[in-house]
Structures are given as structure tokens and as C-alpha cells.
């Protein structure tokens, strides 16, 4: 039974939906039911991930390949976004600080908001849009064209080969990308500061290092692992269990982005609560 549910959650959902129709329950009930079925099947998907990630053989080569695809190929996009965010944030904050005569705080303030919050979150959202939807669409189209079945038949565990490698590499790559985004963002901020007036690179960096401490960096870094994990997992889940049919591919990609972005905000909220709990 458990196995069947893992393999065809959509069928289960459809079946149950049919059943509830025949017993004339209200539509709200069926939506409710559907929601819990979805939650239970994604939970099971997550449990299966943890079971299979520990069990040898390990797909090391494919993990490397995926990390390259997912991480390296996202660099340009993350760099451009990071730079613009740093630049814009600096330009926008200047007038407010100028009102209080605190323009000299500009680098420090931008650094804190960038590193603590905006860098990781923007990077994760970009990542959800690019990588989450990419994984969703790729696995869904493999599902539609029976490539996943073909893998299973040829003696490969498709969950391990496709899902585990993708979830792991997005978990490992997003933190690196976020650090990179922070760095490029600070560069953007440096440019922004120098658009009006002159601040030397040395002064700029010493102001940044004064305002940032370990308690800013560490929680911000840790949460990006969770972002990456959630994005990889949601993308894989939506793709792996997509409807068979061409419209299934688009739907998988689309709902992967929506759901993954939502997860990013939820995780971020929890992370902020946790950090403030520990810091007080």
C-alpha cells in the first residue's frame, strides 16, 4: 500500500476525489481532502529521499554533473541580480540617511540588510525560478515520455539517480551562490556609494566589516541550505509525480516555482524567528 501511494499519488488523489463525489460530500471537503493527500504524499517523498540518500550505491558522478548544471550555470544570473540589488539598495537608502545626517552609515546598513536578508532571499527566489522550474520541467518531461520508466527497467533506481542527485546539488549549490550574490551585491553597493561622492575601497570595506559580525553571517548562511533543499525537493516532487500528458510539463514547472518560492518565504520567516530567539 505504501509503495503504491509512493508511485502514484495522483491516482490516489483522483480515486479519492471520485469516491468523495459518489458519496456526495461538499466540494470543500474534497479540496480539504486533496490538500491533505498532497501533504502526505510530499511528506512521504521527503522520507523516501532521506532513506535513499543514505543507501549505497551513491551516484557521485551524476551529483557532480548536476552541481555543475545547477550551480555553475546559475552564476551569471545571480551575479547580475546581486549587483543590481546592491546598487539600487544603496541609491535608494541614501536620501533617508541623508535626512538624519547619517550618510556615513550607508555601507554598513546596506551590508547588514544585504547579507542578513536580501541577498539570500533574492538569490533563493531567482534559484527557485531558474532551477526549481528547470528540475520540475525536466523530470515531468522525462515522466511523460516514459524515460523514468525506461531507467527503472534498465536496472537503475530513478529516484536515486534523478531526485536524490538534484536535491543534494541544489542544497549544496544555493549557499555558495548566495555567498557569491552577497559579494557581488556589496560590489554593487560600492559602486552606488561612489556615484555621489567618493569613498575609497578601504574605507568601504572597513565600514562593512565593522557592521557585520558572525551572528549576522552564520544564520543567514545556514538558512540557505534549507532554501536549496526545499527548492530541489519541490521541483523534483512536482516533476516526478506530474500528470502524464504534455500539459503536465508546464503545470509541473509552474507549480514548482510557485510552491518553492512560497517555501522560501516560510522558511525565511521560521529562520528569523529562530535566530532572534537564540540571540536574546
Amino acid at each position: 500500500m505504501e509503495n503504491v501511494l509512493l508511485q502514484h499519488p495522483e491516482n490516489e488523489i483522483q480515486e479519492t476525489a471520485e469516491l468523495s463525489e459518489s458519496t456526495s460530500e461538499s466540494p470543500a471537503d474534497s479540496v480539504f481532502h486533496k490538500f491533505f493527500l498532497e501533504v502526505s504524499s510530499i511528506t512521504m517523498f521527503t522520507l523516501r529521499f532521506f532513506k535513499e540518500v543514505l543507501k549505497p550505491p551513491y551516484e557521485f558522478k551524476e551529483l557532480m554533473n548536476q552541481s555543475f548544471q545547477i550551480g555553475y550555470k546559475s552564476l551569471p544570473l545571480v551575479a547580475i541580480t546581486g549587483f543590481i540589488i546592491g546598487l539600487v539598495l544603496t541609491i535608494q537608502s541614501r536620501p533617508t540617511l541623508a535626512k538624519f545626517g547619517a550618510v556615513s552609515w550607508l555601507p554598513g546598513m546596506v551590508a547588514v540588510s544585504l547579507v542578513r536578508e536580501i541577498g539570500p532571499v533574492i538569490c533563493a527566489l531567482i534559484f527557485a525560478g531558474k532551477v526549481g522550474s528547470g528540475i520540475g520541467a525536466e523530470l515531468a518531461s522525462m515522466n511523460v515520455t516514459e524515460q523514468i520508466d525506461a531507467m527503472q527497467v534498465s536496472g537503475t533506481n530513478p529516484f536515486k539517480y534523478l531526485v536524490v542527485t538534484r536535491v543534494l546539488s541544489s542544497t549544496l549549490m544555493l549557499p555558495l551562490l548566495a555567498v557569491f550574490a552577497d559579494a557581488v551585491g556589496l560590489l554593487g553597493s560600492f559602486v552606488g556609494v561612489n556615484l555621489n561622492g567618493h569613498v575609497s575601497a578601504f574605507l568601504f570595506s572597513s565600514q562593512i566589516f565593522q557592521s557585520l559580525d558572525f551572528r549576522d553571517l552564520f544564520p543567514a548562511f545556514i538558512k540557505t541550505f534549507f532554501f536549496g533543499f526545499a527548492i530541489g525537493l519541490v521541483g523534483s516532487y512536482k516533476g516526478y509525480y506530474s500528470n502524464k500528458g504534455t500539459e503536465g510539463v508546464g503545470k509541473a514547472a509552474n507549480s514548482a516555482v510557485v510552491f518553492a518560492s512560497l517555501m522560501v518565504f516560510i522558511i525565511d520567516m521560521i529562520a528569523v524567528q529562530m535566530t532572534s530567539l537564540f540571540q536574546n
Partner: protein
Amino acid sequence: MTAAATHRKAEDENKKNGSVVVKMEHLKKSFGNNRVLRNIDLAIHKGENLVILGKSGTGKSVLIKCIVGLVDYDEGKLEILGEDVAELKEKALGELRKKIGFLFQSGALYDSMSVRENLEFPLRRQSHSISKEQMDSLVKEALQNVGLSDAIDRAPSALSGGMRKRLGLARTLILKPEIMLYDEPTTGLDPITSKEISGLILEIQNKYDTSSVIITHDIECAKLTANRIIVLKDGTFAAEGTYSELEKSADAWVRSFFE
């Protein structure tokens, strides 16, 4: 009756007496309220080509997917090469599945890989110790068998429908399976290419003594390849026999497949 036909008939009889490689007893499978397979009893003999006919949506694909384990059956018994599938552990089941080849209705080519990589993938996965030279020669041989040697470095998306089918076949055959399951090997192909594929299926049977199940709507293909034909209707078998027997069946519905 021509000499060739007599020979063929003797061969059909011969296959019937071979040992059983796949055995199904009272097999049942439903999807929700949709009872697809209601009561399937089936024996596939060593070295025979068994053709399954039936209307679209009657569960032909589901039937062979049960054999290879892509679909879990609900009730009944399934024995493959003398082993009861329900009693096997995951690992033993994996080993057993390696002896079964499956040609997908759609070809199911890995479109992120080149033709060569498509063929290397199953080899790599099955034995980690295989050398580069061994792999190269197996890939070349497999492509030669299906007449695709020139396409080795192309992407699957750059192949025609018939070439894709043949590549799918080559990828399945590269592991030299004992049991081959073909899901509509000739659908969507022109008559000449269909005939070529049918020829390949026969060649495989003769060369490796493979036992095969062939699902098809293409009556020419059935005629060329079948030692025995089964007609599926409403989740059970409505008729069974050789091509010439069923062609003259008393049941008009069965006969309609052969017109």
C-alpha cells in the same frame, strides 16, 4: 499450403512445448473503479513470439508492464523464469528485471544524451567493470544490428520516428535480455519500415532464442512475427491461436482484427 508455411506451423507447435518463462495465474489489476485486467491466465514459452491484439485501452500495455514490474498487480500470481515475483526481495527482483527487455510505445529515449550515450547508459549501470573498448564494440554492434551506425553522435531529437524506434530497440537489446516485451513496435511507421522492424524481431528470436511478447495493432507485423496470438477483451482473453486459426475464427469480432 506452401513449404514455408508448413515449416512455420511445425515451428509454432515446437515452441508451444518449450519450457515456460513467464506464467500468470488469475492476475488482476484495477485503477480505482477501472478494472483493467480481470482474470489473466497466461504462459509464455521459451523462444516463442506471442502477439497480443486488442482494442485501444483494453490494458495491453498494463499487462506487459506488470511483467516488468512498472505496474504492481493487485491479485493473482506471476512467475518469471520460475520465480514467484511476490516472494522476491527488492535486490533479487532487480536482478530478475535485468533479464527482461522492454521496448516502450514511445521509444523513451533519453533526450539529454546522444545516441551513443543512450546505448552506454544501460551498459554502465549494469556492470561497473566494463572497459571502454568493450563498451565501444557493444555499442557499434548494437547500432549495426538496427542499421543506425551513421547516427552514433547525433541527438535523439534529430532522429526520425522509425530511427527512434530502432534506437529504442538497440538500447533494449544491448543487454541481451532473455525475455523481450515490445509495446507497439511498428505503430506510426510506414509499411516498409514496419516490415524491417518485424524482420528485426524475428532475427532477434532466431539469433538469441529470446521469448517475446509483441503488442501490436499492425496485422502485418502479427502475421510475420507471431507463433501464437492472443486477443484481449474486457480484461480477459477472448481468443487464442495461431494466425491462420484466428483468421478463420467463428467469432466475427475476433475475425475483424484480421481484415
